[in-house]
């Protein structure tokens, strides 16, 4: 068992635990924290795969911005424990089995039986960050610019939504 594999299993285990916790916790803050754990673990996995840049962005944007935003909103709205209502019968009875079925089928599909599980995978991509940047600013330049527009729109939308209309 190579150290890399060990690290992988540790991180993966943490991630799954975090995800589970996200489901099980009653209070949004705790869910948020567990989600942060998941994200950090994923960042670690990215590092493990040699996707340093993505890892950093993952933490900076997801961990540092989005989740902070979530927590901020939770604090702002002072959201308490979630009430345990069960108005939706279908969710109450069929929800869990269906979701689990989805998980199972996904898992079954990604791990194809009969195929060599220890299949050779690429080593770390050299100079990934540089490649990403060239790709972003050459091949994907228009989508990239479009995303900036998207962000702009999102900002405006958030402003319009969240500000109290002045009397």
């Amino acid at each position, binding site marked *: 068992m190579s150290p890399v594999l060990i690290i992988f299993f540790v991180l993966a285990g943490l991630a799954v635990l975090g995800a589970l916790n996200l489901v099980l916790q009653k209070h949004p803050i705790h869910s948020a924290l567990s989600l*942060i754990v998941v994200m*950090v673990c994923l960042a670690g996995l990215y590092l493990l795969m040699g996707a340093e840049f993505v890892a*950093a962005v993952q*933490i900076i944007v997801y961990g*540092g911005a989005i989740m902070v935003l979530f927590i901020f909103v939770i604090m702002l709205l002072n959201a308490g424990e979630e009430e345990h209502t069960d108005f939706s019968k279908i969710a109450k009875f069929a929800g869990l089995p269906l979701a689990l079925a989805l998980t199972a089928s996904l898992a079954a599909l990604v791990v194809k039986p009969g195929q060599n599980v220890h299949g050779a995978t690429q080593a770390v991509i050299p100079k990934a960050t540089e490649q990403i940047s060239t790709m972003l600013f050459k091949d994907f330049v228009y989508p990239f610019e479009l995303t900036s527009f998207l962000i702009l729109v999102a900002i405006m939308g958030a402003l319009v939504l969240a500000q109290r209309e002045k009397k």
Partner: protein
Amino acid sequence: MIAFLQQNAFWIITIVKIALLLFIVLTVNAYLTWFERKVVAHIQSRWGPHRVGPHGLLQPAADGLKFLFKEDPTPLGVDKFVYYLAPFLALALSLTALAVIPFGPDPIVLFGQKIYLWITNPDIGLLILFAITALSVYGVALAGWASNSKYSLLGGLRSSAQMISYELALTMSVVGVLLMANTFSLTEIIEKQSHGVGGVGFLGWNIFAWGKDGLLFPQIFGFICFFTSAIAETNRAPFDLPEAESELVAGFHTEYASFKFAMFFIAEYTAMITVSCLATILFFGGWVSIFPDSWTITHYIPSITLIPFGLWVIYDGLKYETIFGKLVLPAVGFAMFAIGAVLLAGAWIAPLHQVNEFIQPVFWFTAKVFVFLFFYVWARGTLPRLRYDQLMNVGWKLLLPVSIANVIVTAGVILWRGHV
């Protein structure tokens, strides 16, 4: 046994380095508090601490003890887990940040092992630093939320909003440097700055940006934006709204006492140090010396500065009131003087020359960091705290646009100079 050591040398060395670094940083933190109190006191024409030890030099130790032995109450109705998690988070993150900071270029060679002056030197050091800074919001925010108290909550809200806002400016202001350095690795960034035009060291720094590539766009604006938003990131005056004592008692750590409070404390000061280091590395050429390499004297400046300083300490000690001071200070002073003299001898003795070579960059690095730390304290001593809306205005309407403009101009200049 030896074999084992040989095999796992890397791990062992790393662990030792970490321990050492922790020790140093914590000590520096402690004395930073002393320094801060002294400076602020003198700014306000007071004496500051001077009872515990000569010039109150043992004050930090006393404070430490106090922190340890104070009662540690946990308020009612707090969210226990988060309440305890917050300080750890804050401290851990701020200490982790130090791991990627390089303090000097050349390694010490011990037992055939090269020991570099950094714990790790990843290619994306800067990104990692920012990642950690980004995460460090949680400590404050969670603390504020978990304490189940209005003041804390407000403090937490403020800090999270503030940190998110200034993170943008912080990141953008650095992009200029990145454009010129073409890398995320801190050591490489420093290396890129070490070629001042005509061998004049400081011209090569990004703040002047007059390196071997000719004059690029000096990052003065970048630096100003960076340092301002860095102060805000570390919740220091004049941006210390999260702990604005006049409005929120003590903000997010109102409900924390004794050691948990100490953790926030240490975290804050460590963050200061990190930021100062970062400023040094990014804009002031890290360990690059001011003077041209060609001069012999350049290599001996640390030693040379040590000698008069030592002499001054001796003089100061001799006219100190307490017996203790009369004894200790001259001794310390003499030690300094002696070391300085011996090292200076290195000009004629080869191995000592090596030592000088080794010390010099570290000296410059620490010197610059010290300047920034002083700046922190100075700002705190002089500037009034901003109002919240002012804070937001500065962050969004001033720093962010300026830093973006800085990026654009820098990029333009680089393109124009054709050093892409």
